[in-house]
């Protein structure tokens, strides 16, 4: 009795294998079959093998065993009387992937839901219903589409101003493409917090990147609100220069947790990732030395970020009013409701275990520190930001988890999934939910359950869940996906797993997953931002979500990380 009835139904097309020794004359039922979900382990362990010509469980069910059969014997037609011939025979290949027939070729249609109207007593009842999308008597949707116009909620314009050179001087200014930073700001920065012992600043030009550096804690764009509040109005952004925060403590211990990226800056950064400096960016490196032993306490890294922000903020002040200066480019981001389009939500899991595993939500200025609320202090519960708030620097990342997988401040400023979902005319992006990964297991369950309730209230049709890092946060990741999937909402998961970060827990809702690994060996390779979400990853995730929402099957994964699967998926992007 190795299969329950439910399991049996799920595996009718999988190979039929005896779970235990059975005597001749046994009429085969659910009691007699081995569970196909553990076949790969059994095969790996040389306990059984599968060959061509075997019967499926559906074919063997109800048939009679001619001779005694040993445990883990694959059933073939010659071993049984009364085989059910209606189902097709199975080959080992077919057992690994269950592709459904009748798959829509290039476009899918999603239908669902009912209108139920019950009136016991009514007076002057005046009902207006949208008939355009009502089902007709034959169950097909009417062909008339009721097109409600888009509703624009808010617009954000990022105006781009070029930086051709950065210099240290005795005042902070931005003129004719040259950013001058007051050298004495490093002294001001030390005063911000008693844990800060020393702050130094160095300008690193693209041609001179072979410079040794302490581990990189963050990459911070230089952006300031010119009009409006975060997420709307105008933000002035300097292109061609970014701040890079590095740090260690007085005892010489790098401020990091799982892996660090101290070393030569030309080798330890994957330039061009959304979170990283770009190929031609001038790096303004702010190195902060904090009190001995505070690198793994919340207060230490926060002090370092606060010190750095003193200098970044002076630059913001210098670019707040550039009304007299022509910008070299403008990007417009629009928070928009698209009625009639599937409502989707992006859930971003952020670190919330304390120490350096913290983030500042919605600071006063883009990518700033002041005014930001710490997700750890908020109990790591889900907090909704509008897509524009995210892209306007609504997250200042304090996380110092593995360098290759961490999402740093610049990443959020140009988050590929937020940008792509917001711009996708086929979808109605409702918002971006940030949920922390708490330190205590009970709290993990608590915040996941709050996420589930939030998702239910949002009435979304689809969701993408991302996480940075790997390890204990994969517990949250699986619970968050289950909280969504168990409510009948199609969900896609996005994470680094590959070889080093392979999942240790999981559930049946995690059947559509995107791998972020870029390392040839599948490791957290300690190269900044290497294994974070790129625009290509975002495209795959969105396509996978659309498939899942439309009912187009997604093939089960290989049992081990295989980079060719990712490449094949990339080839399918229209």
């Amino acid at each position, binding site marked *: 009795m190795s299969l329950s009835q439910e399991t049996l139904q799920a595996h009718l097309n999988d190979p039929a294998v005896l779970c235990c020794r059975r005597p001749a004359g046994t009429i085969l039922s659910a009691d007699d079959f081995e569970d196909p979900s553990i076949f790969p382990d059994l095969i790996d362990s040389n306990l059984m093998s599968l060959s061509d010509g075997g019967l499926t469980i559906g074919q063997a069910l109800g048939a009679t065993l001619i001779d005694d059969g040993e445990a883990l014997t694959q059933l073939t037609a010659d071993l049984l009387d009364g085989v059910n011939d209606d189902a097709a025979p199975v080959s080992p290949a077919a057992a690994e992937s269950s592709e459904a027939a009748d798959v829509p070729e290039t476009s899918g249609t999603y239908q669902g839901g009912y209108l139920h109207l019950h009136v016991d007593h009514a007076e002057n009842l005046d009902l207006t219903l949208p008939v355009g999308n009502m089902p007709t008597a034959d169950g097909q949707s009417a062909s008339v589409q009721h097109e409600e116009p888009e509703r624009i909620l808010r617009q954000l314009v990022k105006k781009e101003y070029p930086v051709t050179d950065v210099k240290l001087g005795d005042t902070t200014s931005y003129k004719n493409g040259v950013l001058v930073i007051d050298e004495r700001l490093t002294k001001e920065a030390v005063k911000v917090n008693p844990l800060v012992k020393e702050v130094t600043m160095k300008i690193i030009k693209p041609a001179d990147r072979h410079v040794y550096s302490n581990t990189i804690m963050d990459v911070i764009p230089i952006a300031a609100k010119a009009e409006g509040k975060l997420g709307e109005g105008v933000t002035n952004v300097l292109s061609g220069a970014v701040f890079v925060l590095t740090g260690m403590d007085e005892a010489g211990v790098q401020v990091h947790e799982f892996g660090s990226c101290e070393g030569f800056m030309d080798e330890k950064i994957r330039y061009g990732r959304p979170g990283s400096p770009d190929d031609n960016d001038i790096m303004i490196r702010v190195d902060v030395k904090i009190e001995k032993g505070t690198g793994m306490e919340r207060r230490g890294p926060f002090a370092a970020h606060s010190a750095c922000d003193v200098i970044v903020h002076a630059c913001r002040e210098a670019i707040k009013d550039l009304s007299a200066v022509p910008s070299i480019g403008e990007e417009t981001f629009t928070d928009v409701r698209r009625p009639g389009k599937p409502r989707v939500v992006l859930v971003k899991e952020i670190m919330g275990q304390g120490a350096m595993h913290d983030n500042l939500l919605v600071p006063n200025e883009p990518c700033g520190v002041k005014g930001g609320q710490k997700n750890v202090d908020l109990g790591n519960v889900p907090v909704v930001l509008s897509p524009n708030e995210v892209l306007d620097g609504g997250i200042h990342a304090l996380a110092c988890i593995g360098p290759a997988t961490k999402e740093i401040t610049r990443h959020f400023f140009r988050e590929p999934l937020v940008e792509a979902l917001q711009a996708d005319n086929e979808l109605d992006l409702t918002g971006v939910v940030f949920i922390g990964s708490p330190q205590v297991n009970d709290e993990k369950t608590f915040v996941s359950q709050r996420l589930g309730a939030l998702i239910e209230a949002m009435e979304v049709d689809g969701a993408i869940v991302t996480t940075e890092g790997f390890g204990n946060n994969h517990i949250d990741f699986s619970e968050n996906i289950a909280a969504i999937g168990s409510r009948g909402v199609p969900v896609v998961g996005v994470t680094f797993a590959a070889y080093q970060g392979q999942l240790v827990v999981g559930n049946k809702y995690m059947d559509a997953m995107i791998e972020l690994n870029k390392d040839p060996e599948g490791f957290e390779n300690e190269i900044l931002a290497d294994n974070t979400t790129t625009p290509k990853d975002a495209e*795959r995730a969105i396509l996978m979500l659309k498939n899942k929402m439309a009912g187009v099957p997604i093939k089960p994964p290989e049992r081990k990380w295989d980079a060719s699967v990712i490449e094949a998926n990339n080839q399918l992007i229209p």
Partner: protein
Amino acid sequence: MTRKFTLTTVPGLQSEVYVPITPEPVWTPLTKPLSECKVAFITSGGIHKKDQKPFDTAGDWSYREIPSDTPSDQLMVTHGGFDNSDINKDVNAMLPIDRLHELVDEGFIGGLVPTFYGFMGGGGNVDKFEHVTGPEIARKLKDEGADIVLATGGCGTCHRSCTLVLRACEAAGMSTCIIAALPPIARQQGAPRITAPHVPIGSNAGEPNNPAMQMGILKDTLNAMGEFDHFGQMKALPYEYRHNV
């Protein structure tokens, strides 16, 4: 409201990350030093006393009570799922009963429960092991004061049956660990703690007549129990034994 969506889809996408489907976590933290712990050992590798009824090798969810002071030469195996020769040479390869007494003698652990349990987990009836055999063994071990329950799996489906019983023990308030020859199965079935020496099924607790290896596996496993701090962790152990049957 019925809605119709038009979405760009492409058949043929494949999920990119393998997901082990694990059951709900179950966890009892180990709060005492090993030297104060009462230890139990169970095995799904078909071990029983020579004077007890052998297991039905076609599938059997019954179990045998093995007094923990039973001389090892009074034990035997009945299991059709793997080569029995190693256990026939030295039953400690599956149920390291002699080593456990040595651990008590040297004060490494506080003591042993009066009764160990043997069952034959091959092709095991999941429902019975989860809802009958597991809770029964767990209740009896708890009544005898077990703090720690160690286990060996035996064959592939034995690892599953064994894990089901260990989960019942963990749920009953004991800290458990499986010494797994097939750790992927133990992990997928939701074992709370796993140690994994490189050994073949049939000598899950170490090479027969190699007390040093058997002792090392047990001590490393017990020490690892203090290191594991949440459900589902695994530690590979540096012992290797190859047996080509």
